[in-house]
């Protein structure tokens, strides 16, 4: 069991992508907040290639960082192996598999709830009954969101048809934009912008968009209605507390990303507060409450959307 941290703890984050990557950015933002509000030391490495991932993690561990966090798209097992070698250090990584004793805790972007809610909005707002998702690639984290979005839409609008496109990389906005345009031209009129580039297409083609991960309304206030936001703050706050108290154990912190814990929510409507039909707003508010109350559960499907 990791030892009690003396006073100020040191946190390091290792990210496989540049910090701009939407998921990574949410983790980063929360850690920055921890630095400011909890007074922890925080450093990070961005763009750490899979080939270097273990080395960088080890370096931090060797240097005595008490908590090492990070994403792990393809570095899941690498991270686990490193953690095994440094049992006194707390590791908390995004992961689809469970935690590993003694020190490897996991979290995940369980934001399918707000995604479902935004799907409901999309289902109501579409006129063509065709909605689309442009995503990076078909991995569980993304499938989960794509499926929840589509399920939300279908619940409120049986006639809705969903289209999915993958661009094959996490960063290629011009391609994402083209993929979105291709969908729009085939009739899609509300689109879920899993990646950068999609909102711009929606804006240009005058259709509606649902943002992802953070509040992106500022990119196109008239286009972006709302979208799921992932807030890592509850997770980070809790984990830091554990480490500080010296009571850290390997756990699944995924729950802290649920709406109930404030780990995810629907982005503010901004301009759309006045534009969204009251009926839709009411419907979403009702469903949101049911989720918070635990009377409604959003199904989780991680298979590739069809």
């Amino acid at each position, binding site marked *: 069991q990791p030892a009690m941290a003396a006073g100020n703890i040191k946190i390091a984050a290792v990210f496989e992508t540049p910090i701009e990557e939407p998921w990574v*950015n949410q983790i980063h933002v929360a850690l920055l907040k921890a630095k400011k509000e909890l007074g922890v030391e925080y450093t990070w490495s961005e763009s750490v290639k899979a080939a270097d991932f273990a080395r960088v993690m080890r370096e931090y561990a060797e240097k005595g960082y008490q908590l090492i966090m990070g994403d792990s798209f393809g570095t899941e097992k690498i991270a686990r192996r490193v953690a095994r070698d440094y049992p006194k250090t707390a590791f908390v990584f995004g992961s689809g598999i469970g935690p590993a004793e003694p020190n490897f805790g996991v979290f995940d972007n369980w934001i399918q709830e707000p995604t479902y809610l935004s799907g409901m909005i999309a289902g109501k707002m579409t006129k063509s009954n065709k909605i689309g998702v442009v995503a990076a690639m078909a991995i569980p984290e993304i499938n989960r969101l794509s499926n929840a979005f589509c399920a939300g839409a279908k619940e409120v609008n049986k006639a809705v048809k969903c289209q999915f*496109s993958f661009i094959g*990389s996490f960063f290629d906005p*011009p391609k994402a934009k083209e993929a979105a345009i*291709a969908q729009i031209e085939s009739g899609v009129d509300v689109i879920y912008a899993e990646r*950068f580039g999609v909102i711009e297409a929606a804006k240009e083609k005058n259709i509606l968009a649902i943002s992802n991960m*953070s509040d992106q309304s500022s990119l196109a206030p008239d286009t972006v209605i709302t979208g799921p936001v992932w807030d890592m703050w509850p997770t980070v706050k809790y984990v830091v507390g554990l480490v500080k108290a010296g009571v850290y154990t390997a756990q699944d912190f995924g729950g802290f990303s649920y709406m109930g814990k404030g780990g995810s929510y629907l982005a503010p409507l901004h301009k759309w507060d006045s534009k969204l039909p009251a009926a839709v707003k009411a419907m979403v508010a009702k469903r949101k409450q049911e989720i918070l109350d635990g009377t409604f559960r959003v199904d989780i499907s991680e298979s590739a959307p*069809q």
Partner: protein
Amino acid sequence: MEILSQILQVGFFAALLRIATPLIFGTIGELYAERAGVLNLGIEGIMMFSAMAGFSGAYFTHSLWFGVLVAVLAGMLGGLLMAVLCVSLGLSQHVSGIGTTLLFSGLSFFLYRLIFGQPSTIPVIEPFRTVNIPWLAKIPIIGPVLFDQYALVYLAFLIVPVTSWILYHTPWGLNLRTVGENPQAANSAGVSVAATRYQALLIAGMFMGLGGAFLSMAQYNAFTFGVISGRGWISIALVVFGQWSPYKSMAGALLFAFIDALQLRLQASNMIHIPYQVFLMMPFVLTILAMALVSRNARAPAALLRPFRKEER
């Protein structure tokens, strides 16, 4: 049948032209370099660097065309480095190119971080709007395809005939081709091989810069890490595919764009359930196949890859 209905859409052709545009810029740029005898493998890095520089220029001045100018200058800077390395110093073109790509892509990200820090929302600009050519754009079907595009798209399709004219009808173009075929011959005809190659690489850099600018300022409105995503490498392939001819290279770019635009639509239409990676690799596979078919008659500029040192034999 359904595929046909996907293709026969105004939007499809418009997308085709848009996707082809950065490839045409890259390809024509590369063409100048290769016709002068220099393989510019620095293209990927140069396009990246100019995408970044152009975006930054536009971001701070709020002038898109100023941004384009910056991108062009940045591209020419890359061309200059290539020229110093493999023309003045006569170093291996493969390595000079890979070095240039390494250096310039590293520099793009590095400077981007220095300029913009690590913002939590990426900085964006108001990108180019399509230019609607009055009257012509109203023509059904071809109007919206051909006459409602970004200014840079028009430019891309303009430089193809212009390049062809320059190469085959102007003294400078002839000198350039001669330098690429037989530098000795050019030299003894009073043409400076080094100067011509410098000019070619600078022009190449200029077009690569336009390609980068198009990606970060028209097709997208920000500089992000995957903004080039191998489009430079593809341009190199397209030059060979097009047998070093401007029109054929453009045709190659259009074919590539055709496949890409088509795969995006096929994916979206959920018509066929094959892994999407198959669509993604289609352009590459077809390019290799097509090259296997045409290559027997293709002939690279004879002096390609050969440094020219005046007093050496």
